[in-house]
């Protein structure tokens, strides 16, 4: 267990949180997008986060203890919940009954995700700062 490991763990955490922020902002930006390349309204994107034992090649030690894990994005999935329908016959994207399907984005939900991801990002950044301080102290032994 050394400094490089810690750096990679925290770095992975930063990446995960940044992805969450990106997805939340994408969802917010497309909250009213009724037309997409795949057809239909925009579907909000969700990250699937999983904990991965680190490093992956530490196979032996895994069975003996419980090594620290890093986080990573396993996949980004589109939320299949149907969006809300609004009756608006004059809208260019209205279906034959005159309903327009709007994205299944709840802005409040996305903002909460944004705030949570932001806090976690800061926490990971603090962990890295702490590591840097420790490394400095360690080097100071030899002045």
């Amino acid at each position, binding site marked *: 267990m050394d400094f490089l490991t810690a750096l990679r*763990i*925290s770095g992975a955490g930063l990446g995960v949180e940044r992805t969450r922020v990106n997805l939340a902002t994408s969802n917010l930006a497309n909250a009213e997008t009724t037309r997409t390349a795949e057809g239909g309204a925009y579907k909000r994107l969700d990250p699937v986060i999983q904990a991965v034992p680190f490093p992956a090649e530490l196979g032996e*030690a895994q069975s003996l*203890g419980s090594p620290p894990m890093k986080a990573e994005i396993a996949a980004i999935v589109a939320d299949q919940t149907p969006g809300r329908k609004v009756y608006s016959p004059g809208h260019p994207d209205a279906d034959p009954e005159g309903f327009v399907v709007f994205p299944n984005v709840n802005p409040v939900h996305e903002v909460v995700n944004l705030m949570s991801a932001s806090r976690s990002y800061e*926490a990971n950044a603090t*962990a890295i700062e702490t590591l840097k301080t420790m490394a400095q102290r*360690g080097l*100071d032994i030899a002045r």
Partner: protein
Amino acid sequence: MKIFDTTLTRLEEALDVRLVEHNVLAGNVANADTPGYRPKALDFSQAMAAAEQMFAGDGMASTSARHLGPAGEGAGEASSRASAAATLLIRETPGTSPSIDGNEVDLDRTMAGLAENSLQYGASARAAGKKLAILRYVVSDGGS
């Protein structure tokens, strides 16, 4: 002839174990948003005791060829016995703030733990540096 005393060894072990603890805590922070994740913890005094045993007994008997050897081989980047001993003692603990997605990491407590760990690491490093500085001073006839 022993130049470096047991106190210095104890300080070295403390530094190693503190680094392992940092890794554990950093892993918890990185997984603060992973659904269903149970935080890991390291009992520091337990780890220090294990590290000391490793040192005193000059390694444990492996019950399997695939287990970590006394010098930590097979542990990848673990560079010392104390590190290896501490790594074996990492456990999953029930978290204190279960949330809807099953994640149990208490971020605030973890951050506080990181801060304290860093402080203790610095203290041990400072003590080790000071002891060596005194030795260095004496060895160089009061020159530096």
